[in-house]
């Protein structure tokens, strides 16, 4: 009996370990999928849940590395104070805070703010990027490793509405898309010391999308989306390896279903392409103009892709065929992207309503629970070890179930 208990406990911890961390925008794989389960019984009042105040505005998502949660915020009359914060996931205690000053422009549309991009981590360091295009790389203890000011370097890298692309890390390179109407670039920065490994001229035009990482056994590429389509490059030298040029959205980002070897691009609605390979041209699997995402990006679970359109309608479609499984009108408006497990989808409305949807059946879905945080939520939530983390301009929440392991 004791052995069985130990085995179960050990398996449970192994599962948690494997599923641990949420290291970037829409998770470590950048498709909104939490591999660990999250219970529908999340509550603000359970003993493991907490809420802590934040020192500034932000719509960046939290990320989780080990037992620490990292998030950014911006404060001050010009939002020029840039905060990088670390909290213990277990109890919400602040572990450290660093406050820097913006060296680039901080003017944004009122709805967004300077802390819009989500941090990223390789497990050893965390990188925070702000709308001012200031980038800070710190170790997990808060010690600065390096910093860059991309608008300090190139004063016309700026967007009057604000910038929000979240960087990614691949093969020791930080890939940062800073694309807008004037100077429009993507940078590959050495994660060790912040030096520029390469800089690419990019299509001119405001672009709020985030890069995605395609990782398989033989290579690791980074996909850059723009109004022209999506291109994958080698992170070490910036060499373009594969390009799809049939246009794409400049707000919602693409997602990859690694299980189905399918790249889902917000292009002409939603376009499914076979995941890029060496020496291959883009191969379209299907296209459905009724699956155009609104502001949020698609999320993927099993054979289903989920999009929320501008009218706040959540749609599930088959990743294999593009056929619509079901539609469900959500309480909106909604700015953030959904996150999913194998059987549940979580989405927050701008008014702070967390809507939990049962997605087990491909034929139908229903909202099974709502949690009202009574605050403006614009971010995409993060998930780790069965809990959800979400933030507003004022606060950071952990939502757990009772007696959470």
């Amino acid at each position: 009996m004791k052995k069985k208990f130990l085995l179960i406990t050990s398996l449970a911890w192994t599962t948690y370990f494997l599923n641990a961390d949420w290291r970037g925008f829409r998770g470590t794989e950048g498709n909104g999928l939490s591999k660990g389960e999250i219970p529908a019984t999340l509550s603000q009042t359970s003993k493991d849940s907490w809420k802590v105040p934040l020192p500034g505005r932000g719509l960046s998502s939290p990320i989780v590395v080990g037992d620490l949660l990292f998030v950014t915020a911006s404060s001050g009359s010009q939002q020029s104070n840039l905060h990088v914060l670390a909290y213990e996931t277990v109890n919400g205690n602040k572990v450290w805070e660093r406050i820097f000053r913006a060296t680039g422009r901080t003017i944004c549309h009122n709805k967004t703010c300077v802390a819009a991009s989500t941090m990223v981590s390789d497990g050893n360091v965390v990188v925070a990027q702000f709308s001012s295009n200031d980038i800070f790389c710190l170790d997990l203890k808060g010690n600065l490793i390096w910093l860059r000011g991309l608008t300090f370097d190139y004063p016309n890298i700026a967007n009057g509405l604000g910038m929000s692309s979240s960087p990614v890390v691949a093969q020791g390179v930080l890939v940062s898309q800073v694309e807008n109407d004037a100077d429009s670039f993507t940078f590959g920065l050495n994660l060790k010391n912040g030096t520029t490994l390469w800089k690419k001229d990019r299509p001119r035009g405001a672009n709020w999308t985030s890069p995605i990482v395609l990782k398989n056994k033989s290579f690791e590429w980074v996909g850059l989306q723009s109004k022209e389509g999506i291109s994958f490059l080698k992170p070490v030298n910036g060499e373009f390896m594969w390009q799809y040029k049939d246009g794409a959205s400049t707000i919602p980002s693409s997602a990859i279903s690694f299980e189905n070897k399918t790249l889902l691009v917000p292009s002409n609605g939603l376009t499914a392409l076979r995941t890029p390979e060496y020496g291959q041209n883009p191969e379209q699997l299907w296209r459905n103009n009724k699956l155009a995402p609104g502001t949020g990006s698609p999320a993927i679970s099993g054979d289903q892709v989920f999009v929320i359109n501008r009218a706040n309608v959540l749609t599930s479609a088959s990743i294999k065929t593009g056929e619509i499984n079901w539609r469900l009108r959500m309480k909106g408006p909604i700015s953030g992207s959904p996150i999913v497990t194998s059987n549940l989808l979580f989405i927050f409305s701008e008014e702070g309503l967390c809507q939990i949807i049962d997605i087990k059946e491909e034929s139908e879905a229903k909202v099974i629970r709502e949690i009202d945080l009574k605050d403006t939520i614009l971010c995409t939530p993060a998930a780790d070890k069965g809990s959800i983390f979400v933030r507003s301009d004022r606060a950071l929440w952990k939502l757990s179930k009772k007696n959470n392991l």
Partner: protein
Amino acid sequence: MFKYLFLLLFCILMHPVFCNDDLFDAIIKLGPKGSGNENLVKQWSSVEKMSSADIPSFFYIMNQANDLGDNWIRAAIFEIIEKSGGDSLPKEEIIKFIKDYNNEGSSRRSAFDFLSSAVPQIAESLIPTFIEDPEPSLRREGVQLLLNQAGDLENELQAIEAYEYALGKARDVDQIEYACKELKGLGKQIDLAQKMGFLTEWKVIGPFDNSSRNGFNIPYSPENTLDSINKKHEGKNGPVAWQTFSTSDRLGLLDLNQPFGHIKEVLCYAYAEFDSMQDQMVQFRIGSKNAWKLWINDELIFARDEYHRGATRVDQFILDGNLRKGKNRILVKVCQNEQTESWTKQWEFCFRITDLSGTKLQSLN
């Protein structure tokens, strides 16, 4: 023998000082586009050996560093304080540093921020002294205190007096607007455009072609002809001449649809002269939701090729530059694009000149 021992002891004792020198040197030498980053990363380990006694030195180094170096220094101070505790901050030296106007405004601001975190009561006690501060962000704190005090007054005459006093000290747009709004509510009208020093009298010429947004980079004759202001030029639809254009907008906004009509894919030039009493460093403060270029005395100060990303804002772009004693020529190129949505019809800009603390400058003429 004794000599060598002394030398060895001297080297051991002075080693941290030299380490600091290497670090400080690396911070000061930090340049744009990542230059100096690698060297600074190598020197950074010496921060671990530093104590809170080194913090004032960091603020003095901040005086010489650029904005990126300032952020490195903030990180170093955070690390030292975390190790030594907030109480260890050498408060007296920090206060002395903040009070000394010879130090850079941004360095003084950073020193104030760290003081505020460690001993908020002491930091707050300094705020009333900031109302004339040359550093705008510190001055703002002092002005906010004045505005709050004015808001607490129940006697209308006293409140008017207090708001007028605060308005006289305010330099940030939002604080100026707030004071004016409160004064309006108390029956006092303020000429905001005059108060903030907007240039409201211009000569304009246009339209010139901006099809496919190409005109932004085409140097039409008004921008490359000597004595251009006294000449006619070839416009989009034939010869065009300079015309006088002024605005009575409360925030000095020049609506270029007025002289030229609601037309698209065009651009125009606006010209003004500013008579400065001396050679001086200034800030050119321009706001526009259209693409624009700014020249002062034929020198291109900045160019921004972006259309309709948000509204035109006062002080949207704050650009450091120089005025020379006497007449200065100001030329602005303002472009309109092809978009037809209702939120893209604006073709406009506003412009003012201030000193480095944000105080308006007015032309002598």
